[in-house]
């Protein structure tokens, strides 16, 4: 049973914040499971922020739009495959997998391409002119505005009708905690992608190139790294992961295909990236999962309206203790 423990903090007529410890205790494991599934989406998007930040020291505010474009890509693939809004589900396991993979590929391509275009049109000219870093930030904001508004003009302000290929069904169930098929797919696939991305950046030659450009672009060029290509690649990689994230997002929340549907998620993902230690891929993963989970705990404990506050408080609390995120940044800085 639920029991309320209301701590009244204020002296004015109304109370300010309620704590509901019972609910949190009740829902702890459910919250954890749900948070992990959602958090893995944060993590995938966070990688895009972290990668681009790593290379250009740029908070790519337009990354949330890269994500949204991916969501549109997935949606239109569903439409092209003949699915309709409403209760339609894919019939049979094989078509389901094929269609999901197709949608995923299209979403990844869409996001990757838009990220690439963004890099080409908005950021490269600035690099040519050696613009200060803040200017990139403003351009990113401009691009974010422009893409959002273009989507708004094109598709209108209402979300695209929901299409779902798969309905969540509990695969494991213990007590009140259910782990659904979608959650498992999303979590496992995200983790897989993250591991691949991490290996790519950590192990491969191009990955080393990315890190080199991040730390010292001039010297990187002296080592034979093609800076422009590396930057392009970084954007594409971030975009592709955001595209994958967008498919997972649409699977979990089919109503999310909306011109500004990435905004909040983008901010959260960036928060996750910072939480884990910006520039650090594993940090992004950890930050994303942690944020997803803690947000849910917070929501149970304080109520839905405090969800975002909890996210930011977590961020601040962690940065107070570890000023460069949980795992620390991996950008490296010269010592005195």
């Amino acid at each position, binding site marked *: 049973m639920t029991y309320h423990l209301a701590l009244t903090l204020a002296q004015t007529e109304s109370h300010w914040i309620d704590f509901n410890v019972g609910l949190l205790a009740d829902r702890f494991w459910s919250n954890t499971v749900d948070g992990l599934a959602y958090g893995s989406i944060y993590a995938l998007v966070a990688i895009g922020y972290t990668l681009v930040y790593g290379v250009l020291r740029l908070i790519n505010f337009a990354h949330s739009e890269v994500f949204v474009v991916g969501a549109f890509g997935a949606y239109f693939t569903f439409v092209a495959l003949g699915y309709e809004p409403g209760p339609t589900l894919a019939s049979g396991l094989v078509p389901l997998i094929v269609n999901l993979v197709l949608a995923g590929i299209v979403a990844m391509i869409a996001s990757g391409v838009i990220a690439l275009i963004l890099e080409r049109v908005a950021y490269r000219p600035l690099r040519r002119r050696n613009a200060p870093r803040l200017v990139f930030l403003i351009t990113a904001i401009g691009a974010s505005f422009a893409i959002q508004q273009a989507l708004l003009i094109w598709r209108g302000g209402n979300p695209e009708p929901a299409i779902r290929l798969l309905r969540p069904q509990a695969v494991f169930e213990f007590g009140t905690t259910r782990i659904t098929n979608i959650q498992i797919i999303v979590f496992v696939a995200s983790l897989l992608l993250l591991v691949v991305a991490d290996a790519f950046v950590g192990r491969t030659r191009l990955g080393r190139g990315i*890190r080199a450009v991040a730390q010292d672009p001039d010297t990187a*060029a*002296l080592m034979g790294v*093609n*800076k422009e290509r590396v930057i392009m690649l970084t954007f594409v990689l971030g975009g592709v992961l955001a595209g994958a994230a967008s498919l997972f997002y649409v699977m979990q929340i089919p109503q999310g295909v909306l011109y500004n549907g990435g905004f909040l998620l983008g901010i959260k993902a960036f928060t996750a990236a910072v939480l884990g230690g910006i520039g650090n891929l594993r940090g992004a993963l950890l930050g994303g999962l942690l944020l997803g989970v803690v947000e849910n705990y917070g929501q149970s404990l304080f109520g839905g309206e405090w969800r975002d506050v909890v996210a930011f408080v977590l961020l601040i609390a962690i940065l107070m203790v570890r000023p460069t995120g949980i795992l620390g940044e991996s950008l490296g*800085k010269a010592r005195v």
Partner: protein
Amino acid sequence: MALLEIAGMSVHYGRIEALRDVSLTVEEGEIVTLIGANGAGKTTTMRAVSGLIPLSRGSIKFNGEDITRLRADLRVRRGICQSPEGRGVFPGMTVRENLDMGCYARKDRKGIEADFERVFELFPRLKERISQAGGTLSGGEQQMVAIGRALMARPRLLLLDEPSMGLAPQFIQQIFAIITEINQQGTTVLLVEQNAQQALSRAHRGYVLETGSVTRSSAAGELLADPAVKEAYLGIA
């Protein structure tokens, strides 16, 4: 045909002209030394050869090919590698990864392994610190990394910008020995050094750079003997 041929090169930083009409050649197999006071434009020359700054006039030819407008990373592929002023160690990479970056443009695994061994032989210190982050190394250790990294690239033309800077005396000796050695193995070297005495005595030819222009160029020995050069750059009044 000279390996490196710079003709009439001018370079601007914004409105400031840092190099004016510099012409310079390096023959295959040579060690050429560039000397000059602070701010004369030595580093600028090196950066221009590596492609880090564009020329405002003039041309650079490498191995007969005009590379004036070639991107920096492609020049590396042609065989030009530089150990830059200020070392340019990647602070967030370990010593090993830093050295690895030197072979970014290389493919031969075997040769790379051998070169690792060679670098560690030259600088045992680096082997001890193999997984320390580049940014936390001491100044001299960083210099070792920078030089080792340039060696790892096995370039045709090696550009060394003040390789002895920050190194302890015994290493300075060693560095110059290495330069001679790799030169004898076939690597052409363009060397900027404040330690002009040492550099010139190892080099075949030398250039004197003053406020952005070449004022003198001749065989190293002649420069060493030139009283004006002696007074200005060798500290022998």
